[in-house]
Every structure is written in C-alpha cells, then in structure tokens.
C-alpha cells in the first residue's frame, strides 16, 4: 500500500469515526397485540473483549439463552425479543459512548459490566431515567443508581457472614488466614467473611494481600502458613485462587475442606487452572447446580454443550433471570414499546421491577424490595473433579 493511499485511508477513518459517534436509528413500527414494535431489543453493555472476556461471554450466553426460550414460548406479549451485545471492552471510555447511544432508544438495558464501566456509564442511564440492570455487582455499587438500577444481591454485610460462619462451624475452623485480592468490592467482602467467622468464635489471624499481577504464590502462602492457621479463605481472582490452593498443597496442607473459596472465584478459570487439586475445597455461591428441575436441567445441558462440559458458573444465571424479569415487567405493565411513550414506559418497567414479588428465577423464587432482593439463598459446595456438590443451603 503506498503512502498516499495510507493518508487517504486515515482521513476517511477520521470522518467515519466522527459520524459513527451518532446514535441508533428508530426501532421498527409494527408488532403484536398492544405492542407497536416488531421486536423487543434489549441492549446488554458487556465486556465481550478484554481481560474479563471469558466472564462476559457466559453472561451474554445466559441472556441470549433466556431470549431463545422466551421466543420459543411466543415472545414477550407476543413479540420476539433480542438481546444485543454491546461491547464495552472493560473500557469506561467506550462504555459512556455506548450508553449514551442506548439511552436514545432503549426501554431498558442490561449491564454494564464490570464496576469501572458501571461507574462511568450508569449515571447516563440515571439522568435519562432508564433502568439499567447491573446484575453482577454488589449492592454497594448498585444502590447509588437507585431507582434506575436494581441490585441482584443483598448487602455484603448481610449476605456473606452467614456463609463464612456456617463453613467455620461445620468444618471446625478456629484460626483463619484470608487471601484477599486488591480489587473492587473484594476487600469489603473479605471483611464480611471475618465478621462471619467471629460469630462462631473463630480467630482471624490476618489477611494476605494478593497483587493483581502476582505470577508465583510461594511468598504469599508461606506468609499465610507462618501464622499457623487451621482454615483458609481465598477471596481473589479465580486463576490465582487455584494457584494458591496448589501452593498450599505443595507445602503440606491436607485439610482441603478447611479452604473456603468465595463466589467470585467460581469461574471456569478456577477449574481449568486448579483441576484435581481443588478436590475437597469448599466454595460458596448463589446457585445450586444439583437442583433437578426441567428448566434448570435444560439450561445446564445447553451450557455444557456449548462449553465443553463445564458446569455453569454462578453468575451465568444472573442475566438470564434479568431478561425474564424484564419480560414479566413488560407484560404486567402492558407497555407497548412505542418510542413516543418511551419516558413513561421506562418508568413503568422500572417501578414494576423494583418491588417485584415472587419472581420465578431459574433456580429459586425471590422478592424485590426497593431494588434489593430479599430471601435469596446462598449455598456451600464442596468441589470434586471439577464439579460442585451441595453441602448446605443457607438463608438469612
């Protein structure tokens, strides 16, 4: 390619990029009974590329799976639904531009994912009075955007202590060291674990901070073992959590059930990195993969088919449920999708979700109260050969 062509290409790119900063066109104009559109389009601001692309992938999968099932059953108010993946690539700069395009037309949005993009982009949704369902973040991040967001989790201070407490009690753990990844809400979650174990008289010996770019874990594990714990909690990135478990084993740790992994570590990276070394460790999260219901079995089978037999991670159901929640809100409120009524219909849908009662999630029912879920269970599992076996269900 010669230099003149290169220069011309650059000028064309510049023009195109300015034009491309514009918004989406209007949706279609005809639809089912009461509904004036041909298709419900739900944008999902997600990290489909970048460092957490593997997480973004299964979140997207869950949302699209819900759309698939809904369409098979006749759609939302008789109109098909489509989840549109909008990649923010973990970049706040991209997230704000994409959200600002979305607020021009969308009734409701899914995401953003993860926290830096939420913080940058969600205020735009709030300003435009559009519900954006941040279904993977903690209440501490979501509540600042209420009532234009809902939390998928109760507060950390309420949710986590019982899980840590039950583990400490069931496995007779008395002295705990915790590995903490220095990222987002994890230090807060770590503090909640400590509150939980103290309820049963266990002693918190200390925290070992795990740097984001740690590649070997010997120094951290030696530091932890030097405190003579009989129990370990690991609250850090999944692959690093697996490496820490392996390092503990290589230094003589044998009581695998006295290692508790937190829910954010429940990701494919944990299992692909840790393999059989994870056998016997305990992990908590919010879905019970051993449930036997037709709906869950179908979800699980479809997930495993598309993901080389891996079990669905804990977060994979969140946006699946979010899409169904949107369906119920649309059908209960009778919104039409009419662009001329966008503002009122956004409000109706948001209000319907904030206090939705008896919502039938994929695995359990729960109630929303002013945007915060109540009576949601947590579970303790034991990992065996890459699969989670239920130990107990815990409700507050």
């Amino acid at each position, binding site marked *: *390619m010669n*230099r003149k062509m*290169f*220069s011309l290409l*650059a000028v064309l*790119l*510049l023009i*195109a*990029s*300015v*034009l*491309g*900063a*514009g*918004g989406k066109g209007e949706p279609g104009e005809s639809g089912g009974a009461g509904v004036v559109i041909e298709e419900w389009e739900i944008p999902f601001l997600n990290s*489909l*590329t970048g460092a957490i692309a593997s997480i973004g992938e299964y979140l997207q999968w869950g949302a699209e799976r819900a759309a698939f099932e809904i369409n098979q059953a006749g759609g939302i108010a008789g109109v098909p639904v489509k989840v549109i*993946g*909008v*990649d923010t*690539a*973990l970049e*706040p*700069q*991209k997230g*704000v*531009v*994409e959200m*600002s*395009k979305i*607020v*021009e037309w969308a009734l409701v949005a899914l995401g953003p994912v993860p*926290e*830096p993009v939420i*913080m*940058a982009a969600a*205020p*735009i949704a709030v*300003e435009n009075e559009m519900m954006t369902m941040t279904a993977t973040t903690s209440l*501490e*991040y979501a509540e*600042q955007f209420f009532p234009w967001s809902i939390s998928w989790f109760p507060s950390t201070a309420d949710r986590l202590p019982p899980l840590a407490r039950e583990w400490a009690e069931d496995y007779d753990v008395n002295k705990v060291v915790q590995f903490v990844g*220095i*990222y*987002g*809400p*994890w*230090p*807060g979650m770590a503090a909640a674990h400590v509150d939980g174990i103290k309820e049963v008289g266990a002693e918190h010996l200390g925290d070992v901070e795990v740097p984001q770019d740690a590649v070997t874990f010997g120094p951290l594990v030696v530091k932890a073992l030097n405190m003579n714990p009989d129990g370990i909690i690991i609250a850090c990135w999944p692959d690093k959590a697996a490496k820490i478990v392996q390092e503990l084993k290589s230094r003589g740790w044998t009581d695998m059930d006295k290692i508790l992994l937190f829910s954010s570590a429940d990701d494919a990276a944990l299992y692909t990195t840790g393999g059989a070394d994870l056998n016997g460790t305990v992990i908590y999260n919010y879905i019970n993969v051993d449930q036997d219901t037709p709906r869950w079995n179908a979800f699980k089978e479809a997930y495993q088919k598309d993901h080389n037999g891996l079990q669905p991670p804990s977060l994979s159901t969140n946006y699946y449920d979010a899409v169904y929640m949107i369906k119920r809100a649309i059908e209960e409120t009778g919104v039409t999708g009419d662009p001329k009524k966008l503002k009122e219909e956004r409000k109706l849908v948001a209000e319907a979700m904030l206090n939705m009662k008896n919502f039938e999630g994929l695995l359990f029912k729960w109630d929303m109260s002013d945007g915060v879920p109540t009576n949601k269970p947590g579970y303790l599992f034991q990992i065996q050969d890459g699969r989670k076996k239920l130990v107990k269900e815990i409700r507050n």
Partner: protein
Amino acid sequence: MSLALYYFLTIAAIYILMSWGLYLPYRVAHLHFLTVANMLISGYLAGYMVQTLHVPFSLALIAGFAAGGIIGYIVSRFIGDAPTFTVVIVGFTFIYISRTAVENIKAVGATMGMFGLPAVGGSPAMHRLTLLILLYAMVVVVGFLIYRFEHSRLGRAASTVFVDKDLATSMGVDIKRLGRLLQTFSSLLAGGCGVIYGFIYRSFHLDFFTFHLVGIFMTVIFVGGYATLWGTVLAAPALYGLSLILPPEVASWRIVIYGAILIAVLVLKPEGFITRRLAHKLETTLSRRRRR
C-alpha cells in the same frame, strides 16, 4: 448535540491533550510515562477536594494542575537530562506507587473508587457544557503554546537534542533545563486532564488509569506523527472513533487492529501520517493564501 457525540468529543479531547503531554517530552527523546501517574494523583486529589472538602470545582482543577506541575518539576530535577531508560522506569515506578497508594487510602474510596461527584454548574447539562468548553479551550491554548514552542529557539533546540544529544550540547543547548521544562509542562497538563477525565464520568476508579493508557497515547503519537503536534489532532479522534464504528465481530479484534496499524505506520511511514515536512507545506500554503 447528542450525548454520544458529547462523550466522543470530550474523550477525544482528553486523548489529544494527553498525547501532547507525551509528545512534548518525546521531542527530546523522553518517554515520560509519569503523566499517567499525574492524571491519577491529580484526579483523585481533585475528587476528594470536591466531594469531601466541598471545594469548588474550579479550585480543585487548579489544584490538580498544580499538583501535576509540582510533581513533574521535582521529578524533572532528577531526570531532566537522564537517559531514556531512566525516564521510562521513573514513569512505571510512579504509576505503581500511585496506584498502590490509592488502593490503600480509604478516604478516596480505595479499591471501590470514588463516585457520585457533584455536577459542575449544578445540572448535568451545565456540567457537560462546562467540561466541553473547558476541554476545547485547553486544546486551543495548549495547541497554541506547543505551536509557538515548535517555532521558537527552544523547539529547534529540542529537535537538535532528539537527533543528536552530543551535537546539541556542543551547540550550547542546556539539555537538563529543556528536559525539565518539557517534563514539568507535560505533568502539569496531565494533572489537569486527570481531573477533567474523572469529572466526565463523575467518578474515579483505579481502572480509569492503567498501563493500557500508555499504550493508547503512544499509538496516537506514533500513528499521527511524532514530529509535529498536528498528528495527534488527527490520530486521537480517528483511533478512538474506530473502536466505536467497527461492527461487533470486527470490534472484538480491535486491539489487533490497533497493533497492526501501529506496526504498519512504523514500517511504512516511520514519522507518522503528519510528517514535519507535510505540516510545514500545509502551513506555508495556508499562509500564502492568507497573504493573498
């Protein structure tokens, strides 16, 4: 103006300003990555001042500029004429230190970040207008200053240092002083940009200021042209906008595309799209037309 266009314009302006912040020290062959640390430090400082101490935004912005300038000046006293490697390591060090410090300071939100910053001017619309005007006023002022610098003795001295440090010294160029000036100015600029960057989102998070930004700004400079200020003006909106216009299947490969563009430009057009010769030609043509 649509919101999408507003965010595109504001972030493109940040990219232009920050790339100029790297461009200036690069005139004396310094890769001054300290600017990313300056963004972070000044940004969080201003955020804390506005949110916790209820200081007006204007004062916090001045404080942000000042913090950037002071840090840049102090550091430049040590590395004003240091080898390129030293400057690079200094930059990395400060990025690590500043990130670690913020992670551990609860008053600025630690790993959670700082959010819900008040709108400048009282309403979201006023906030956006204020930031947009401020940013493009900065683009004009800084652009003018850099333009004057380039057409001054100092600018010619910088060019000499870039080509041959020893020759520059023998011609009487005070390399340390020149390096100090450019590094201080670029840090000052970065400090102000860091404040505005966070206020565009009305929040601050560590993931807003990563090593990734270094890669972006370097790409802008080298693709646009590292020999004049105009290359950045072209490349910043083009490269940022590229990621917004690509179809999703292609956009997922955008880092590969950026890398390929960077390599292609380095190999085929080492000076970037806007070379000094081209810039000079355009300036001469424009000034001839003006005289007519």
